[in-house]
């Protein structure tokens, strides 16, 4: 297998180190790297590390990331347990509903919250009318952490649910027979068994905390909350002309965070055999009975759905159907379909939708195939290279959106032979796949960790070659992981924008670009209308997929 393993790792390394490398190189120069006047210099590092704003932003980012993870991981795991392992009522409705937040562009979610619970949001005004004041403040670090945490529960859900599907029911049933309440079963049996899924998703969510931009911009800025990405935004303007070297230093700082993170992740997952749940013995499958906890569990989930999805989504829907909103306006007086009519006349609408969904369906499938290959190649491979791969895969996400776009533009411009891909959907797909590598890959890794070695060994003993083992034993066993990975990539690719911003042109625009352009022009009503169309399309697709038997 070495003939496949080594080239895969080498290609992976090249593909990751090109965009990240050019940024690191830029950080030690005093001019744009393509300028003939560029000289090696550490002046940028001196400047950034001397800025009090940088330290403040770094610290705030850490707090945001930690808070987000602390909220998202337990809730996501619990939610996955309830939906996948128990007889929770209304599952068919809950499953698509809870995946919707991933599809919405973060800036749209943030805006939805402003319309719903902002200072003059409809919920705020309603409560103000009842009790005379608004008991919450949307613009604060606390709100930002809570919203960020809650909106990332679906990511953890996807990770955990894929692993939970394959659990042997016997273990949980035995606990129930012994009298454990369902929550106790979840906390002491089911969730510990899907530890890899929780660790991987926890690490990834934490790292995502450094990349968040839309939410901190809309919700954090008014409260003077500065995170690394909004600090980067300031840096593009501080000297008048964008200063790539300063931005690069911030990226290097973020990249350094990956080191302890991945080390911690590897440490937590050291003992691989503990998480094997798909062993040689067959197991019964069927939902765990919740008994009298059923309706309580449902109520909790509905409450979560209302806060996380209901509020911002209703804000967005409201904005899409009114001509104006705010204090002193009764929304029922301003209902209109005009925003949708205006949207339909927008020049690039249909093209953007088609490109986006092409990228998100076919493109995501291609990405998952690549991620699957990498996961399989490093599966049960005792080698130093696996450690290298572990550190490499998280690196691309250390490029925040603002810089990722630039990095990929530079790669496509300055690396020979890549130029033809530059203004094509393939180029955009490549950029997306590299940046979200860790996310799609780790979902598959978590599934792989559940397979007992004896299954594959049995196939080998029976005479199957390595390829046959993978095709007939391993891949079928990780199919939930593959499907979940595709779903995650689908959701992410639909809303992505900044990574491919410089690779787009007439004919290759995507939805995210349209939303940002409309947002910048102040046409928030069109943004809202477009988001509603977006959500409806994706929800319809999801419901269809679930009907056709796709299990997530």
């Amino acid at each position: 297998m070495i003939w496949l393993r080594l080239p895969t790792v080498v290609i992976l390394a090249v593909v990751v180190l090109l965009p990240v490398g050019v940024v690191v190189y830029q950080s030690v120069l005093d001019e744009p790297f393509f300028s003939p006047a560029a000289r090696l210099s550490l002046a940028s590092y001196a400047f950034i590390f001397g800025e009090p704003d940088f330290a403040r932003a770094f610290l705030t980012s850490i707090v945001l990331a930690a808070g987000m993870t602390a909220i998202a991981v337990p809730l996501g795991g619990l939610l996955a347990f309830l939906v996948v392992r128990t007889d929770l009522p209304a599952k068919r409705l809950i499953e698509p509903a809870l995946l919707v937040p991933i599809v919405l562009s973060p800036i749209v979610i943030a805006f939805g919250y402003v319309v719903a619970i902002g200072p003059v949001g409809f919920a705020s005004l309603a409560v103000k009318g009842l009790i005379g004041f608004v008991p919450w403040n949307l613009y604060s670090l606390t709100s930002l952490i809570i919203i960020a945490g809650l909106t990332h529960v679906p990511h953890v859900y996807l990770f955990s649910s894929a692993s939970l599907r394959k659990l042997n029911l016997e273990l949980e049933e035995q606990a129930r027979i012994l009298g454990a309440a369902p929550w106790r079963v979840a906390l002491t049996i089911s969730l510990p068994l899907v530890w890899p899924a929780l660790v991987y998703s926890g690490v990834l969510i934490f790292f995502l905390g450094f990349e968040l931009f839309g939410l901190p911009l809309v919700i954090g800025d008014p409260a003077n909350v500065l995170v690394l990405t909004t600090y980067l935004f300031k840096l593009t303007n501080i000297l008048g002309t964008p200063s790539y070297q300063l931005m690069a230093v911030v990226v290097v700082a973020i990249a350094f965070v990956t080191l302890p993170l991945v080390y911690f992740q590897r440490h937590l997952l050291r003992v691989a055999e503990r998480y094997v749940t798909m062993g040689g013995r067959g197991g019964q499958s069927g939902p765990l009975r919740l008994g009298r906890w059923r309706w309580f569990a449902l109520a909790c989930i509905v409450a979560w759905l209302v806060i996380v999805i209901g509020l911002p989504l209703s804000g967005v829907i409201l904005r899409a159907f009114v001509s104006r909103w705010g204090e002193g306006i009764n929304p029922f007086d301003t209902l209109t379909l005009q925003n949708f009519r205006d949207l339909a006349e927008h020049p690039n609408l249909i093209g953007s939708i088609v490109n986006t969904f092409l990228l998100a369906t076919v493109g995501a499938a291609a990405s998952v195939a690549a991620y699957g290959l990498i996961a399989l190649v490093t599966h049960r491979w005792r080698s130093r290279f696996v450690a290298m791969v572990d550190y490499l895969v998280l690196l691309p996400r250390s490029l925040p959106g603002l810089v990722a776009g630039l990095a990929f533009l530079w790669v496509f411009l300055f690396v020979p032979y890549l130029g033809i891909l530059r203004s094509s959907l393939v180029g955009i797909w490549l950029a997306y796949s590299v940046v979200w590598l860790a996310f799609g890959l780790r979902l598959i890794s978590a599934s792989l960790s559940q397979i007992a070695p004896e299954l594959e060994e049995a196939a080998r003993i029976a005479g199957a070659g390595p390829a046959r083992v993978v095709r007939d034993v391993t891949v079928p066993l990780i199919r939930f992981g593959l499907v979940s990975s595709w779903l995650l990539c689908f959701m992410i690719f639909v809303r992505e924008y900044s990574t491919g911003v410089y690779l787009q042109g007439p004919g290759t625009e995507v939805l995210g670009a349209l939303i940002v352009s409309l947002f910048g022009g102040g046409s928030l009503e069109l943004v809202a209308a477009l988001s509603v169309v977006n959500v409806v399309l994706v929800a319809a697709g999801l419901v269809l997929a679930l009907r056709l038997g796709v299990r997530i």
Partner: protein
Amino acid sequence: MKRFALASALLLGMLVSASAQAVPPGYPADYQAIISAAEQEGSVAVYSATDSASADVLLKDFRALYPKVQIRYYDLNSTEIYNRYLSETAANAETADVLWSGSMDLQLKLVADGHALTHHSPESAKMPKWAVYEDRAWGTTFEPLVIAYNKRLFPADAVPASHGDLLRLLKERPQLLAGGKLTSYDPEKSGFGFLLMTQDEKYFPQFWELAAAFGHGTGRFYPSSGTMIERITSGEHLVGFNVIGSYVVLRQKKDPDLGLVYPSDYVLVMSRVAFIPKNAKRPNAAKLFMDYLLSARAQKIMANQAMLFSLRDDVEGPYSAAALSKELGSRLKPIPVDMSLLAALAPAKRLAMMRKWQETARAQ
């Protein structure tokens, strides 16, 4: 036989000349060469910060005028235009044929660094002197910066009529706008916002007092006019300072509660600057598009349907320099399209001004 040959030659000649687009009225006859060359080139790539919805009418009209020249319109923000153009040029890759952006200082920086092609446009003579820089860069619009306010929620007697009025309002009736009810550009996040600050400093002697009055939570700052307007109409903020007039006017069509004031002491005016890069692959098509933007025909569209505020003195319309001049005369202070824009980019001066802003308007 001879007559037949002559007749068919004439017919062929007529067909050939009829298939090339005619020279626009008032242009020199040798402009035909540019048009033919442009039609050979076949397309023009425009990197523009004017969103595609607003520009759509103009693009459709250009297509009607020159059907053989396809427009490839890239809708980007001004920083993206700058980054993309510079990187592509450094790599000798295909880039824009026309750059059109409202970030006046960034555009002139590129011109100063030698990126612009000199083009003696037939329309240059008809443009205001301050809007043409050495036949290398042209302002195309005449957009005033205004004070916007929420008619529904802000008392009519308190609406500031000038910059001085605004300062008085903040000093004498601070409770009206306390708690973040005033909004303006964030010069820390928006180069355009910073440019406006340098202009205000020039024309308003008490500017830093005004900045100080923005402090202590009164002012909320955003990087774009669009966000400001959305939050003024919703009532989250009540008054907006230095909002781009064309956006306000556009929004007023949907929301009659949005008020607009042209300050009576002075009105800053910005212009979207366009230039043709030296390394444009399709320079003739670029010239065609540039001359089109400056032509009376396009400017008339800007003054009417597109609501972009036309620049030419000889173009009439509700959203035109002509109409504004009639109403506001010498109060209008257009930001000149020249090297004075680069003063805002000098690092030492820029950082010093940023700090001053942080210490006054951002004081907690």
